[in-house]
């Protein structure tokens, strides 16, 4: 409970470009860290590759790399290689980090970063939500506690899908609470106008 309260307080400090006046960030969602696992395995393998190359391949095929001037050349090549690996790792991380769902007291923003030069931002008014479904399907999602949330909006508008997010059930409940609060606020505004 206390942990959730701290998380709420932390979210309140966040802001994003295009935020409305009086709009409060209630929830920040990113994909579950498990989506990074294949990239992590790939990058680890790429990281270990030169070491394996040095142990098994160099003595047999390029013995010159073990002798004086070429030894340093090998180190230089290794450093350049690791520089590229480091950049690749950060590119993956940026792609993960900037893929985000921001839920405020007014709307839901779905920001998708695809590579460096493709960014899709969609938004949905919380009051227009008609149906929210959370789904945890499969062994890994059940074990690690991640899943999808589908949000159906009014009329023929597109369906929002929050994929591989952690704790989908809790998040669905929270979105429902925010939806109710938004509706309630709206009703009060209309009542005030009528009076």
């Amino acid at each position, binding site marked *: 409970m206390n942990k959730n309260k701290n998380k709420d307080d932390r979210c309140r*400090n*966040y*802001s*994003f470009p295009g935020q409305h006046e009086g709009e409060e960030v209630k929830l*920040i969602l990113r994909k579950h860290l498990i989506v990074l696992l294949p990239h992590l395995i790939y990058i680890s393998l790429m990281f270990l590759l030169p070491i394996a190359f040095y142990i098994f391949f160099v003595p047999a095929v390029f013995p010159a790399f073990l002798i*004086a*001037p*070429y030894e*340093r*050349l090998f*180190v*230089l*090549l290794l*450093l*350049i290689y*690791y*520089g*590229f690996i*480091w*950049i690749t790792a*950060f*590119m993956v991380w*940026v792609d993960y*980090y*900037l893929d*985000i769902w*921001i839920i405020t007291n007014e709307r839901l923003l779905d*920001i998708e*970063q695809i590579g*460096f030069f493709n*960014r899709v931002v969609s938004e949905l008014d919380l009051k227009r939500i008609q149906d929210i479904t959370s789904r945890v399907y499969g062994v890994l999602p059940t074990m690690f506690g991640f899943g999808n949330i589908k949000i159906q909006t009014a009329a023929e508008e597109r369906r929002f899908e929050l994929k591989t997010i952690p704790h989908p059930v809790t998040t669905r409940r929270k979105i429902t609470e925010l939806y109710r609060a938004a509706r309630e606020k709206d009703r009060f505004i209309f009542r005030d106008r009528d009076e």
Partner: protein
Amino acid sequence: MSQSFIIAVLTFLVIPLGIFFLFSWLIFYHLKRYGLKGDSTKKVAVFFRLSMIFISIIIIVTFFFINWDNIAIRDFIERSNINLFPTEYE
């Protein structure tokens, strides 16, 4: 300045460090522009930039520790099939 050295500067310094600079700037720019304000994005962006500068410095230092005149890069390129140094045929 030997030819080996010039080739080495181009191959091992200018091109890789140019790519490093471009990508580190791109990543830094994206984090700074699109990252949420109030979380640790800025710290991560600065950490990444510094790490790239650190790697680049180590590369430059290693580069100048190599005696390029003793390394037969030119011979290697000539012996391979790249037509960088066209030979005149009589």
